């Protein structure tokens, strides 16, 4: 709803759009309390929002008018064309296009990634400022400031509300995918929240990506690859934690709990993603996740294949964290000694020193090499570096097993 209204008022007037939505919901609560739920609540909401938007436009025509130059929204300024134009903007397929346009506006390269995600959650996922603040373990004030700055940016830069031209679609879509994946990761392995898994963020990320996969402008192979990747990952979410919120490591997870439907869905997306000659990091990450998903038992995991995918991944997008993950595959295929050599030779090792997983892997390697003392030291270092209680507990458990 916010995305359609932003299309109507322009991104500069994002607040007006939000006000209309809020007013609509206030009306809904008032009316529904007395008259009961209408037959089609969402149609009711859309109709009320549409009428409110017409009122706002009629009242503030002059304020909006100078922005309408050469824009189809110009037709909203004339009574001859206001209502048909308005009706047109609320058509199902137009709404979808608008959500997409909003996504592209949110992921403008001029906006920092964390502000992008904040804005996506607020405008596209309908999160309240308080909910966003909770997801990022920060104050509502900070979130409000972030939103304010982004809106100022829209106003100052006069960001157009549109799906980019064909030439730019690819690049801009990648920026959007990046934000979606960040959102997904925040849900899959929350760094900010006490809960390690945030199902709501996972669902929103997948919903946004699905939208991209359904629109003909953005049906790129990487979109489907990310969709596949997220399907494979989310198939495993339920088995990753105990009822008490403790982490269960991949090897110890009950694989029967993995969601077969989501794995099948991932497969379908993977097949679609294979069209074209494009090989993105999402393709490779999805392929790795797929290998994990099809192994009936942890010992059946095809680590050789996974190692190969990691090699490709590093060639495609060199990154110390990927190199770190490759070490795990090396450890499985060739043993801890070889993994240690690879680990020592990671190009940008400095960056990893403050990353808890690096020390956690060191601990695991020391343990396999029977250097228990060093292993404990590494695990302790890892504990000091993670914010997450669940991760700390898991590492403490590991130490307990070694003692």
């Amino acid at each position: 709803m916010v995305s359609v209204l932003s299309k109507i008022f322009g991104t500069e007037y994002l607040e007006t759009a939000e006000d209309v939505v809020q007013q609509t919901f206030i009306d809904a609560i008032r009316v529904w309390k007395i008259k009961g739920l209408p037959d089609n609540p969402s149609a009711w909401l859309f109709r009320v929002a549409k009428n409110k938007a017409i009122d706002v436009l009629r009242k503030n025509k002059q304020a909006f008018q100078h922005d309408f130059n050469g824009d189809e929204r110009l037709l909203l300024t004339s009574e001859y064309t206001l209502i048909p134009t308005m009706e047109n903007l609320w058509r199902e397929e137009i709404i979808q296009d608008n959500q997409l346009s909003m996504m592209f506006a949110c992921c403008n390269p001029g906006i920092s990634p964390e502000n992008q995600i904040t804005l996506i959650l607020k405008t596209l996922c309908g999160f309240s400022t308080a909910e966003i603040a909770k997801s990022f373990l920060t104050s509502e004030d900070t979130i409000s400031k972030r939103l304010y700055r982004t809106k100022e940016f829209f106003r100052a830069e006069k960001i157009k509300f549109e799906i980019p031209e064909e030439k730019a679609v690819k690049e801009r879509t990648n920026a959007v995918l990046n934000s979606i994946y960040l959102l997904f990761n925040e849900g899959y392995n929350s760094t900010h929240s006490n809960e390690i898994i945030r199902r709501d963020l996972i669902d929103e990320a997948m919903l946004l990506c699905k939208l991209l996969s359904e629109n003909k402008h953005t049906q790129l192979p990487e979109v489907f690859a990310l969709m596949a990747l997220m399907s494979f990952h989310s198939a495993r979410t339920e088995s990753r934690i105990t009822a008490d919120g403790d982490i269960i490591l991949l090897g110890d997870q009950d694989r029967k709990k993995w969601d077969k439907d989501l794995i099948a869905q991932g497969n379908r997306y993977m097949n679609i993603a294979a069209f074209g000659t494009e090989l993105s990091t999402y393709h490779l990450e999805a392929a790795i996740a797929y290998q994990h998903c099809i192994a009936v038992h942890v010992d059946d995991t095809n680590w050789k294949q996974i190692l190969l995918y990691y090699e490709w991944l590093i060639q495609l997008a060199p990154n110390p964290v990927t190199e770190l993950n490759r070490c795990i595959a090396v450890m499985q295929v060739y043993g801890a000694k070889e993994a240690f050599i690879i680990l020592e030779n990671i190009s940008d090792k400095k960056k990893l020193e403050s990353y808890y997983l690096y020390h956690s892997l060191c601990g695991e390697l020391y343990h396999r090499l029977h250097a228990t003392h060093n292993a404990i030291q590494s695990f302790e270092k890892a504990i000091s570096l993670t914010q997450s209680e669940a991760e700390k507990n898991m590492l403490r458990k590991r130490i307990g097993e070694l003692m």
Partner: protein
Amino acid sequence: MKEYLLLFRGGDNPDMQNSPNAFQAHMARWMQWMSDMQKQGRLVGGQPLSQEGKQLSGTNKVISDGPFMEGKEFVGGYLLIKATGFDEAVLLSKNCPILEFENGNVEVREIQMLHM
């Protein structure tokens, strides 16, 4: 590029008033015509006018009610458009849906630049 004011007169038709469907179809053609001009960057703005009105006249500022004139003389709306000259302004006006009626009339007037 010059600006032209289009004044619409007439175009009232009893059949239209009795049939909401016909009226809607007619308005859809207004929409089409105007959005075509918008796409060409010709449209500046414009509104339909209601039948009620007031008149002020003379140095005494005498106020009287309404245009009170025959339907075909009554200005029912206006549009401001951009065109290279009268030829083009007239060409654009030819597609105006008001000309679906025998008594429909479009007056095309060029905006005058006042040099003072």
